[in-house]
């Protein structure tokens, strides 16, 4: 057997082919689309939701810190089981600065560590999509503890989905709005599904704009069905108690505090 001549084993230099590049581009686009879906349905909520919770926690700690300084040497108040009557609650003035954070929303039904910041106004980019706030207060509606309707809105999916579990609320669930002054306890009363144009759900007396308000209502609005903008899901709660910061936080919330 004669010796074979040394074969040039080096691979021929690969050249870019149109089909090859096109194929790789198509695969890339496919991967990007899948990544987007994963981000939209899951990762975005993890990232933004975490940041929103973080910002709400910082705001709450700030208020606690102030209360501690004012208290001086006195021991911290014990958690309170029975709150005060709602008509003793102070009403803060509506913030004049749009997008300003002025309260936090704490809903045990939404999760043990659920806390979000409420900002003034319902600007999509600045409040609802924000990594800091996420929940927006309808300008011109009443403030927490005020006779009438404290109306707020938030996303049901994506951007942290602050109201992702809105329709999981059960009658009797407590929804807390916390401000520098203390905790406003609202009790969930019922859901309603409406068209986006039915603005009387945020009237001082919901669904009865001509009626003088006699109750302190909290109205939460979000989109419905999930991933659609065709309708709105509305959750009504009514204020049932007031917990001033100096006399201690509601016992229901005390478990989660550090």
């Amino acid at each position, binding site marked *: 057997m004669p010796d074979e001549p040394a074969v040039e084993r080096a691979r021929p230099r690969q050249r870019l082919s149109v089909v090859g590049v096109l194929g790789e581009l198509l695969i890339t686009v496919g991967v990007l689309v899948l990544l*987007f879906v994963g981000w939209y349905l899951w990762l975005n909520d993890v990232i933004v939701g975490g940041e929103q919770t973080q910002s709400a926690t910082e705001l709450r700690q700030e208020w606690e810190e102030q209360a501690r300084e004012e208290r001086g040497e006195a021991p911290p108040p014990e958690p309170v089981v029975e709150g005060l009557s709602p008509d003793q609650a102070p009403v803060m003035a509506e913030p004049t600065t749009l997008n300003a954070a002025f309260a936090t929303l704490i809903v045990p039904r939404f999760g043990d560590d659920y806390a979000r910041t409420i900002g003034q106004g319902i600007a999509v980019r600045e409040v609802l999509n924000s990594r800091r706030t996420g929940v927006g207060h309808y300008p011109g509606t009443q403030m927490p503890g005020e006779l009438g309707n404290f109306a707020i809105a938030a996303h049901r999916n994506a951007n942290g989905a602050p109201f992702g579990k809105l329709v999981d609320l059960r009658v009797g669930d407590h929804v807390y709005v916390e401000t520098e002054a203390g905790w406003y306890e609202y009790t969930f009363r019922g859901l309603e599904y409406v068209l*986006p*144009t039915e603005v009387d759900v945020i009237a001082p007396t919901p669904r009865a704009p001509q009626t003088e308000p006699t109750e302190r209502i909290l109205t939460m609005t979000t989109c419905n069905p999930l991933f659609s903008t065709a309708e709105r899901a509305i959750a009504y709660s009514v204020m049932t108690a007031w917990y001033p910061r100096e006399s201690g936080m509601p016992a229901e919330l005390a478990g989660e505090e550090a």
Partner: protein
Amino acid sequence: MYAALWRALPGPVWLRIIIVLALVAGILWALAYVVFPWVADVLLPQDVTVEE
């Protein structure tokens, strides 16, 4: 295309792997924090408020 990019990277294989991982991490970060939020705003506008 990707093969050509791989050949264009400098250094030994281990260095190229590190460079590729860094590039991929940077691209994923830019997607999650910049590109995808913008795409979602444009393609999937959301409306959670009631208004006239």
